[in-house]
Every structure is written in structure tokens, then in C-alpha cells.
């Protein structure tokens, strides 16, 4: 939220709502500003419901897609600035970190004590127009709880006296203990609202009834259990740039300069590190700079391969004005992979390397979104029963394993095996309206015509009824038929149950 306000100050007067997708066509709210909160919008709510709550203020509603990566990068920059106060600065361990932890052991005296340090930090962050709270305590858990849930105002700081962490937490709500949501829900149902209420319960019974999480968090807040801070290390910047005294237009010179920049950047990389993404930027004389990203499926330091990928994109670059400068920056690195070749493996390292090179080249020239792989999703509507994701950027994602609870029955295996007969190889996202003659109102099709084509249907299998729920957006209710025409063609068509209109959606 603060990131967006910094980038676009005009959003401060808007009802700003952040959303994330939850499967196809389903958006849910993940963040709200104070205006949105006042309108009754809460995180977890569907976006459609949030829009309806805004009502007459709908012109002020501003929906923005969340960008956790950008948020994390901004927080990382703040962490770097905070390193003047502590050598150990860490980001909150979360998918969407919102806090920084500073270990000020042995550092406070340099700022005139803990108060002095807190004051200096507060002044610096306020100067950057951040909304924040600072808390100093003996333990990570106590500092987090007091900063997030203690009595606070914006730009405030609190110091919990030494040895009194648990006392400071007693009056706080359960959310201050960083419990798993399901455990917090159980405790709330049991009438436990404050951390002080938990203290009165025997620890052993907490463990046996709710698992180890509650006892562990209490112990961490007291300082009896260990909690580790993982220091944030800024990603080193490998960058090369050149400024030209005279603007240049010749494409050959652009290529030569780019090659030189690539060589410089490769020299900067430490041993064992490979490039996974490059940002190439070309400055034009009195015009907007041109830039493109080069992504790799596997980290690489092979100059020839990287140059090939850059050159493929340079071919599509059109300079409106002469070039006055260029820069190359490594925006993604990963350790180079070394694998020992096995004697009987099906895929050799060279074939895997060729595959990586192919993916890099295809993605570089055609675009990341044009080279995809698919995975099945559980959705009744056929066109939404799979999700596509670019091959680039997925190499580190493990192949999802089948849940042991969901055993593959012989029937499901057979169904999968016969999917080549049940589903067409070509499916149109926009079905074609057709005219169908059926002898019974709800009966199978007998004759089919669209445009100038007319075909008699000699076999029809179905109906396969597919319906989707109203909660996932536009509901569908269709009866699908697989039809064989008198010319021997196999088609997939459906009748919409509400309107009784017929559509052709695929061919086998």
C-alpha cells in the first residue's frame, strides 16, 4: 500500500484495494487502505463484493493487483538503510513481509542508549514519509507483538523494559503471538482472546490439544526458546554501462557495445554464480529509453549463448533516435548447476542443456508468455481445466506430487487414459454459434448448419452436463455432445441450458 502511495501520490485520496487472483476469474482482496477499511472492505473478501460495498463512491474505488516481489524489493531497500543501526537486519519470515528486525545487541550505546537509537531511527524513517512503529524488546516475538499490536500511533516508538516481555504481551490480542490461523481460530472459539488468558492454561495441555505452535511462541516471547534471525544480504549489483560522447545510429556499433558490456558484466560475477536474468537498456537522444529483459531457464555464464539471446531481442528493437548510452544489469543470479552424468539415465546433461538453450531462445524471441507448459486444475469448465505458465521462471518449482489422500483409482486412471476420446484436440475459447435441428427439445442434435455448411449428424454421444457455481463468476450450464457427421467428422458441441442455443466448440 505504501509502495503504491509513494509511486502514485494521487492514490492517497482513493479507496485503494489490492487484489490477487484465486484461480481463473476469481479475485479476492488482500490489502485495503484506511478509506477502504472505513467502507467495510476487509482482506479475504471477493472483489465483486468489495465493489458493491463502495456503492456511490465507486468512482473513487481503485483496484490494483498486488505485487509481492515489488513490495519485498522496497522493504529490502529500507533494510539496507537500517544497516547503519545494526549489522544484522532481517526481513520478516513471511510470503508478504511487512516488518524489519534489527538486532541491536551491543549497538545501542553508539546512539546514546536504546532511547537514542529509537529516536534516530524514527526520525530517519519519518523523513522518508513511511508509516511505521518501532518497538524494542528482549525477544523477537515481543518486539513484533508490541510494534504491530501494542498501543501505538504512527511514527511512534516503544521500549519494553528488560525482563518484562511477557508482562507487556499479556494484554495483547492472540494475533500478536504469530500463531497459525487455524490454531488462533480454535482458541477464539474456546473464548481465549488475550495472551494473558493463555498463560493461565497449563502448557502441557496446550501442546497436546493444539500442537507445539502455541507453547513454542510463548517460549520465544519469553526468551526461553531460540528464534533465529536470517540477516538480509543485499543482492550485489553486477552492472556495466557506457555513455557516448556522440549519438550513434549504426546497428553494428550497438551490437559491439552490447557485447562489450556483456563481457564486463561476466567478469564481475563471482565463481559459481550464473545469470538467470539480464536487463538491457539503451538510452536515446531526446526520447524514452528502450529496454528489454533476457531470461534464462537455467543459470548460465556462457557468453556465446547469452549474446545470442541478446541479439535475438536486438533484432526486434527499433531506435527512434540515435543512441547515447547503454547499460547491462544482471537482475537475477543463481548458482551454476553441476550434475554428474549417470550411466543409465534417460536424459543426458547435454540433452538437458540443449533443452534449456532451446527454451531460452524461443522465449527470448517470441516472448516469455509464448512458450508455456500446462498443469491441470480442478475446474468443470473444459477451457479452464488447465493453467498455463511460462517455462522460464518455473525451473525451480518442484513438480507437484499427487496427494497421498487422493489415490489414483482404476476408474480415474482409465478416465485419464480415455481423455483422448472424451476431449477434442482443438478447443475454441470462443465457441461458434450454430443452428441445430433436434427432434426433441432437450434431445441430441440431428442436423447442424453454420454459414454455408450443413451436415447431418449420424451419431451423438451425450449429454455430458457441465455446470459451474454462481460464486466463481459467470455461471455456465451446458449439455455437451460429441457428434459424428455423415461426412465422418467428429465435432464437440453444446447446448446452453438457459437459452437452448447451440455452439460448436471443438473438433476431435
Amino acid at each position, binding site marked *: 500500500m505504501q509502495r503504491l502511495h509513494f509511486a502514485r501520490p494521487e492514490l492517497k485520496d482513493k479507496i485503494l484495494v489490492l487484489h490477487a487472483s484465486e484461480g481463473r476469474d476469481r479475485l479476492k482482496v488482500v490489502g485495503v487502505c484506511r478509506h477502504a477499511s472505513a467502507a467495510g472492505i476487509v482482506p479475504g473478501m471477493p472483489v465483486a463484493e468489495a465493489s458493491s460495498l463502495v456503492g456511490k463512491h465507486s468512482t473513487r474505488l481503485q483496484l490494483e493487483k498486488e505485487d509481492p516481489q515489488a513490495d519485498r524489493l522496497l522493504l529490502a531497500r529500507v533494510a539496507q538503510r537500517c544497516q547503519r543501526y545494526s549489522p544484522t537486519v532481517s526481513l520478516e519470515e513471511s510470503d508478504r513481509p511487512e516488518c524489519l528486525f534489527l538486532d541491536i545487541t551491543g549497538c545501542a550505546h553508539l546512539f546514546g542508549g536504546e532511547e537514542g537509537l529509537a529516536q534516530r531511527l524514527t526520525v530517519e524513517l519519518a523523513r522518508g514519509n513511511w508509516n511505521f512503529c518501532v518497538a524494542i524488546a528482549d525477544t523477537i516475538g515481543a518486539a513484533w507483538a508490541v510494534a504491530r499490536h501494542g498501543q501505538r500511533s504512527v511514527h511512534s516508538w516503544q521500549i519494553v523494559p528488560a525482563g518484562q516481555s511477557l508482562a507487556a504481551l499479556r494484554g495483547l490480542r492472540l494475533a500478536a503471538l504469530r500463531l497459525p490461523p487455524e490454531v488462533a481460530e480454535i482458541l477464539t472459539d474456546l473464548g481465549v482472546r488475550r495472551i494473558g488468558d493463555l498463560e493461565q492454561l497449563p502448557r502441557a495441555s496446550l501442546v497436546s490439544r493444539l500442537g507445539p505452535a502455541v507453547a513454542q511462541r510463548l517460549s520465544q516471547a519469553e526468551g526461553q526458546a531460540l528464534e533465529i534471525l536470517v540477516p538480509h544480504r543485499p543482492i550485489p549489483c553486477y552492472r556495466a554501462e557506457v555513455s557516448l560522447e556522440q549519438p550513434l545510429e549504426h546497428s553494428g556499433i550497438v551490437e559491439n557495445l552490447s557485447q562489450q558490456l556483456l563481457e564486463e558484466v561476466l567478469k564481475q560475477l563471482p565463481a559459481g554464480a550464473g545469470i538467470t536474468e539480464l536487463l538491457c537498456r539503451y538510452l536515446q537522444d531526446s526520447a524514452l529509453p528502450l529496454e528489454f529483459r533476457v531470461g534464462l531457464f537455467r543459470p548460465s555464464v556462457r557468453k556465446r549463448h547469452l549474446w545470442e539471446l541478446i541479439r535475438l531481442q536486438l533484432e526486434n528493437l527499433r531506435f527512434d533516435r540515435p543512441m547515447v548510452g547503454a547499460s547491462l544489469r544482471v537482475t537475477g543470479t543463481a548458482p551454476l548447476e553441476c550434475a554428474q552424468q549417470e550411466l543409465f539415465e534417460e536424459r543426458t546433461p547435454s540433452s538437458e542443456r540443449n533443452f534449456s538453450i532451446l527454451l531460452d531462445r*524461443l522465449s527470448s524471441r517470441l516472448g516469455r508468455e509464448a512458450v508455456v507448459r500446462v498443469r491441470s486444475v480442478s475446474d468443470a469448465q473444459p477451457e479452464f481445466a488447465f493453467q498455463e505458465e511460462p517455462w522460464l521462471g518455473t525451473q525451480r518449482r518442484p513438480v507437484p506430487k499427487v496427494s497421498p489422500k487422493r489415490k489414483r483409482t482404476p476408474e480415474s486412471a482409465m478416465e485419464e487414459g480415455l*481423455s*483422448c476420446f472424451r476431449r477434442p*484436440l482443438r478447443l475454441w475459447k470462443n465457441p461458434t454459434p450454430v443452428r441445430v435441428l433436434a427432434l426433441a427439445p432437450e*434431445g441430441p442434435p440431428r442436423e447442424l448448419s453454420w454459414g454455408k455448411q450443413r451436415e447431418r449428424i449420424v451419431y451423438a454421444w451425450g449429454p455430458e452436463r457441465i455446470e459451474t457455481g454462481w460464486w466463481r463468476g459467470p455461471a455456465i450450464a451446458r449439455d455437451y455432445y460429441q457428434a459424428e457427421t455423415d461426412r465422418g*467428422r467428429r465435432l464437440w458441441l453444446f447446448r446452453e441450458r438457459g437459452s437452448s442455443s447451440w455452439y460448436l466448440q471443438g473438433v476431435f
Partner: protein
Amino acid sequence: MAATEVLEELERKLAALESERRGRAKTSRADEAREAHEEVYSTGLVALDEMLPLRGIRPGSLVEWLAVQEGVGAEWLAFRAAAEICRSLDSVGRCLVVDPRGDFYPLAVKGFGLQPRDLVIVRPKNAKEELWAYDQALRSGAIQVVVGWIDRLADTPFRRLQLAAEKSGSLGFLLRPAAVRNKPSWAEVRFLVDSVPVAQRQPVLRPGSVGPPVTHGGAGLPFRLFPQEQISVRPGRHFRIQVLRCPGGKPPAGKEIRVDEETGAVRLVPPLAGAKAAFRQAGA
């Protein structure tokens, strides 16, 4: 010399040339692949393999699947064969699909045994990108079979694709309309695929069935209306396949293949008298 003797002599010379080409020093990965094992890949359909003199498709080949019209099953056969080849031994096992129109439905190929992790889908935006994608995929050697729909293919790019496949040992399955059958082609194998209309199918006797055999042809079509019931007995897919070109000899006469949709079994339909007339009528 009589015409038949001339033809036989030409066939012998053609076979000798092809053998000489296989016997010479290895110059490409395709040659190495051919030397390494059986030299051919089975299509997974014995009936289709038997139509080819070499009993399969050689590595490094381009194969054209010409569909008489949409929906006759040329794609079905091509993907079935591609899946079989990807599962074969010593295969990198990957299939790349060039999908310029964006209407390929990937879940349909799961039934053939092609897993999503082994499938790469490429969506080029124009013809130039499409040809480039084919070229790169065939040339890389990392893809076992490249499948795609390509209507127009000029001679020079076609030759380039053939050379790319030959050098790497990958296979290229080109799904094309039958209208291009008379155009020059650099494909090593050309299949012309049509579906056998119901009226031309032979009667099918179901073993162990009670009652008279189900007739699928003739005037009295047993088309039954099922307002509330599902029609459960599927007569299967009937393909009429003609090999327009293949290495190793003269292409055989066209054949009919039937695929049972209940079990997935495939078998050759023996020809009956009048089959030639049926082929001529269908324009094969």
C-alpha cells in the same frame, strides 16, 4: 522395356540409393540414431506401421499428416504416434507443439501418455516466428517430436526444416490440409487421412453380444433418440489412411483402421469388394 519392368527397375534403383545413403559415413545425428537401434520409430499403431515398408518412421524425418477435412482425425493419429515415440527407449521424450491459432487443447493428449512436464507449447504471433520456432525446435535435438499445424509452407523453408530434422534426429509432424497434396514436399512420409463415413463402414460383430449384429452402414441407420439416456455404445473411429510417400519402396494401397473407443484397441479393417470404388469416391 515394358512399363512394369521400367517401374520395377526404378524402384530397385530408389531402394539402392536409400540403402547407400544409410550405409555411408555418419554425418548427422539422424544417421547415428538410425544406426544405434532399430532405425525406425513405431507409430504405436501396428496397423499403421504395417503400411510402411520400413515398419516405422526413421529418425530425422518430416512426416506430413494431410487431413481431407477438419475433424477426420489426422491430429488424433499424429499425436498418438508422437506420444508413442516420446515414450520409446533412448528418447529424450519431449514433444513440442507449435500452436499458432491458440486452439490446441493440451489435456486431450494426456490420454496418449504425454505428460504436461514433457510438453512444450509455443504460440508464435506470425508466420515468420512460426517457421523460426519449427526450425529452432527441430535443430536443437532436445525435442523428440515437433507437432504443428502449418497450412502454407514454401519450398525453401520446407527444405530448411527437413535439413534441421535430419541433422538433429528429431521428428517433425506437420498437420496440413489435403489441398497441399499436389504441392512439392520435402517430407519423407506423407499420410492422407480421412474418416470413413458411417454409410461406408462394414458391419461390426461384437463378440459375445446377444442379438443380431449392429449394422453401422446402409440406409436403415439405427439412429436412436435418447432424450434422457446416454448412448453408451460407441462405434469407434474409422480412419482411411493412404500413404502418399514413404521410403523403402512403393507406397502400399490405402487401408482402413478402426479404433475402439471403449478400450483404445486398434485394428486393421480388412478390405471388401468395392473398397477400391470407395477410395475413388472419397478422392483418395
